[in-house]
């Protein structure tokens, strides 16, 4: 199975097809003009679907960049509750 990083890149690629892999890994709400609220919800839904997780509403605001989302997916709490990520 692909690593969480590769799977997250795939999610970003679907929502922001104009970005290359390098740009995706540096992407944040500040650096990607198309990362508006609709794109943010779409990215979140695609990520939830890919990793079979449910993001808590209170966690949404912190997920503002590729690295932060990856950290969130790798966080101990989430990993413990979701074997699909490991």
């Amino acid at each position: 199975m692909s690593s969480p990083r590769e799977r997250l890149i795939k999610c970003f690629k679907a929502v922001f097809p104009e970005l290359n892999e390098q740009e995706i890994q540096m992407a944040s709400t500040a650096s990607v003009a198309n990362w508006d609220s609709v794109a943010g919800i779409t990215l979140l839904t695609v990520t939830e679907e890919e990793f079979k997780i449910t993001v808590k509403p209170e966690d949404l605001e912190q997920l503002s960049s590729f690295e932060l989302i990856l950290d969130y997916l790798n966080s101990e709490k989430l990993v413990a509750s979701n074997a699909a990520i490991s």
Partner: protein
Amino acid sequence: MKLIEALNIISKTPGDGTPMNVALICGFTPLHLSAFLHAELNKCFPDNKIILSTGLYGDLLGNLNAINENKPDAAVVLIEWADLDARLGTRQLGGWGPRHLKSICDRVSSYLAEVGRRLDQASANCPIYLCLPTLPLPPLFHTYRWQASNPEMQLRGELFSFASRFSNNSRINLLNIQRLDHLSPPSERLDVKSEWESGFPFSIPHASVVGELLAKLIHNPPGMKGLITDLDNTLWNGIVGDVGAQGVHWDLDHHSQSHGIYQQFLRTLSEEGALLGIASKNDPANVEEVFQRADILLPKNCLFPCELGWQSKSRSIGRILKIWNIGADSVVFIDDSLAEIAEVRSAYPDIKCIQFPCGDHRGAYKLIEHLRDLFGRRSISQEDALRLNSIREHARFEQDGQNDENGFSEELLREMKAELTLSFVKDERDGRLLDLLNKTNQFNLNGKRYTESSWQDYMHRPDTYVLAVSYKDRFGLLGKIAVLAGRTDGNSLWVDTWAMSCRAFARRIEHQCVKSLFDFFGAAQILLNYTKTTKNIPLARFLKEIIHKEPEGLLTLSRESFLNSCPKLYHQLVIPRNADLTHV
């Protein structure tokens, strides 16, 4: 479909096709539904560039009005309970409880009336694809959830009377809620987290199913044209050659109801205009005896031709296809034997072969449902009822030796009292013309297909003409069998599109169409926008006959050269007076 798949389909679809504008109108944020609908439309219309627009959040009525200004190619309208009264949703807290129920019912009634008025207006400007509420009503009634309450029934009654008003309107197409229920369980449709956080109330699987069904509703694929059935252990249970005509059965008492329902369904298809034929290894006398039984549900006159004998099934099917004059890809073959199916499939890879699940009640019912989808059609026209008879007549000529190798004999053509009605009226309500253009393959100038909206736009252009051709002769009526459309340009006349039913071949109707265009418009030359397709061989043959070379690309036909090549025509012409050619 997963959301990521939908997004990938959208981003990977080349954007160079003919634009197709689709408006998605609903009262909630369409979010992922628009992605699923967009992706499914891309799959259904690979030659089009789909441009999907959405309206303002929460303004269903305003968005309906916008159809009249924007005139999209199609408008998808989704109504949810919360659009009819915000208290029927969960995002706004307007109060539930007994004291609110009457006002909720009253508001729903008046709001639906207003939506209905605006839909009527909008449907004059583009075809509408309407989806009634898919989400469950919230628990606002006083009864347990297993007991229906009077206000709830009132609400549902209002909705169904609203829907039934539009179900007979050819410009407003309703999504079938029963199909939606089958594919998307009602209890798994609402996603409150998504609704409260982002205003999008659908779960992802539900959005995917709604998008898929709406795209299918817009697509309206051409249905299958013919069905060829086996007899023993298919149309009836048992082998008539072994047990005799009284020994085969199709009823509950003999546990063979699946064959009875199959017969009943085939009769339905026949009455709807589908062609039915038989390919069976049997003694014709035995078969005849079964069809004499009083309890047969599918009369033999619904079936033509009946290929009975001991030749291979593929040979029988070849003969049937020749008589029907349709392509194998428009035909379904049903047989209980996998060996027979394999033999037919090897000879005709395009034919859709299905095994009849003899002895499997559930499987047989699924087959009927599947056939319904394969042979579905939006409406039934007069021509559908005429189809079988005209094919029978044509076959009779063949049997009587009245055809030469190029079609009917000269003597027969002279004596058949053929009458062609040439109507230049641009009738936008005439769905038969669009059917001919979108479902005819063999005699089709270039294979160009039209959406309802693009066809209307074409017709409304002041420089275009549309010619609808109907035919009858002393043997019967064929109905509306051809449509030509084009433009005028000085002394030249363009033909942009031309389709003719295969039932009308060999009567020199195509020659008369061209001659009539020259005569009617006084044109010096006709420019035919020809494109070779994999199937328009009969049309190419006709063109080769009149231009004396293989047709290729845009063809120019002068009046003089056409008249030199045109055989003698015997048709009597009828041209209605109200031809709509004032601007052409």
